[in-house]
């Protein structure tokens, strides 16, 4: 792991790393990766790809209409609310 790789991972995770944090983060991160690397010593060839899905007990719910959240209640907790809409920043860039 080097600075370039760390910054790429941070970019994918939408986190900024300041230059002064780079060396301590690289150090922590390398140690953690080295630590989890231990699993490479474990032989997992006996495990099939399909086995990673645990036994499940799913039961589908009935397709019934239920009361959803009320608009007035949502208006009270929204950071900004106007004319029946929650106001958010512009998320489409042109």
């Amino acid at each position, binding site marked *: 792991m080097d600075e370039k790789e760390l910054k790429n991972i941070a970019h994918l995770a939408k986190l900024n790393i300041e230059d002064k944090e780079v060396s301590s983060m690289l150090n922590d991160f390398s140690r953690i990766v080295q630590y989890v690397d231990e699993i490479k010593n474990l032989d*997992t060839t006996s495990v099939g790809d399909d086995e990673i899905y645990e036994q499940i007990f799913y039961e589908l719910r009935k397709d019934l209409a239920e009361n959803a959240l009320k608009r007035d209640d949502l208006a009270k907790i929204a950071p900004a609310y106007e004319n029946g809409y929650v106001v958010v920043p512009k998320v489409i860039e042109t």
Partner: protein
Amino acid sequence: MKDLIYLTYSEIKTKLNDGSLKSTDLVSAYIKRIETADSKVKAFLEFNKEQILKQATESDERRKSGKLFSEFDGIPIGIKDNICITGQITSCSSRILENFRSPYDASVIQKLKDKGFVLFPRLNMDEFAMGSSTENSAFQTTRNPFDTNRIPGGSSGGSAAAVAASMLPVSLGSDTGGSIRQPAALCGIWGLKPTYGRVSRYGLIAYASSLDQIGPFSNDLQGISDLMEIISGLDHKDQTTAKVAAFEANSVSSIDWKGKRIGVMKSEDFSFSPDVNKRYAEILKTLESKGATLVPLDFSLLKYAIPVYYLIATAECSSNLSRFDGIRYGLRKDGAGKLEDLYSESRTAGFGPEVKRRILLGTFSLSSGYYDAYYGKAQKARVLIRKQYAEFFKKVDIIFQPTSPTTAFKVGEKTKDPIQMYQADILTTSVNLAGVPAISCPAGLDSTGLPIGLQITSSHFDESKLLSYAKSVSELEVCKLTLPTEIA
């Protein structure tokens, strides 16, 4: 008469129902205790006196008019700050959710309200439940009531410390890798992680969805059994809840140790602190003297549990926490008008160092070129761990281990070294990976007066057996301890 705050959960339940105790008197006593003791313990992020007293008054009125919701009506319960309650802030002890108010109740909260419990939100935790000491809270470090220079364990440190400091009889926490059992052990109380799928996660703010479970803390075992019955069950709002026979609190009864096969660690694997080693050996000797058969199990595979846990939990957290983008929830930085910058600046300002570390590790193990070697490999290793437990339960009835390798460590002792902190969970994470239930039972004090915890693990959905063994453990003299009255 015993001060109300030192009553056990069972005593409270009995007194409320025989009319010798009013919920308002009990709740007022707890409020007074919180007002004096919590300046030292710092278990509560917030508590609203008027709102809490109003619930207690309503409960007393229901009782007076004979319209009780249940036999639990009026019992106070603390709530960890990652379980949603309508209209309340649910911050996960994070800046990014500092002002987030939930528009709905978690399923467990709805169940508690239906029974008439008096809810005491909001108990401190490691940010997004990531930590083993409650030092990762963005707001305050909770202290251990037995010694306030020490940590209470984590991540549900506030929930554990509030009960241990006699500020509440019971509380709810969540356990992803040990976050109920480890603080229960370090604070000298009971804490249960139910089988994965037993309790609905609807309204629990997700950290690692395939591992998270909500569970109870209590100052006696009856509180654990009762809460388990109340909060568990199939929930159509959480598709991972299981359709299995309901757990019933009255199915719990003491066992006869004679002939029971108890899975234990080999003595050469006792690499814990001397006091923990000693107490564990004493307990095993006691059980043997009562006729139980000790069966040493090979736990060597479980040395991989922490690496496997950190790869799987962080991968899931990097995905779960991607929803915190500054657009829809909590903290928002303006990003100088650029969307990408708004995301990254909001997240960078909103998350603390440990959360960032885990998001980065998770993003790394899921990224192109590393997926098979890390995340994929960890998933397969998890299968081996699950199979290992299945093998264990062919040989033994139950497994006994210490909950934590040490008693409570000092505040600041492990914060500089993430790996050392991760090691605190060495005995608890494999239980979450396998999905089986486990409880931490108080197991007396060490030579310096700090609590030791005993972890009991059973097979999937066998909480009745698990709690029956726990009940018998509660009767052992070697496991007795008293919670502190003075907080220093």
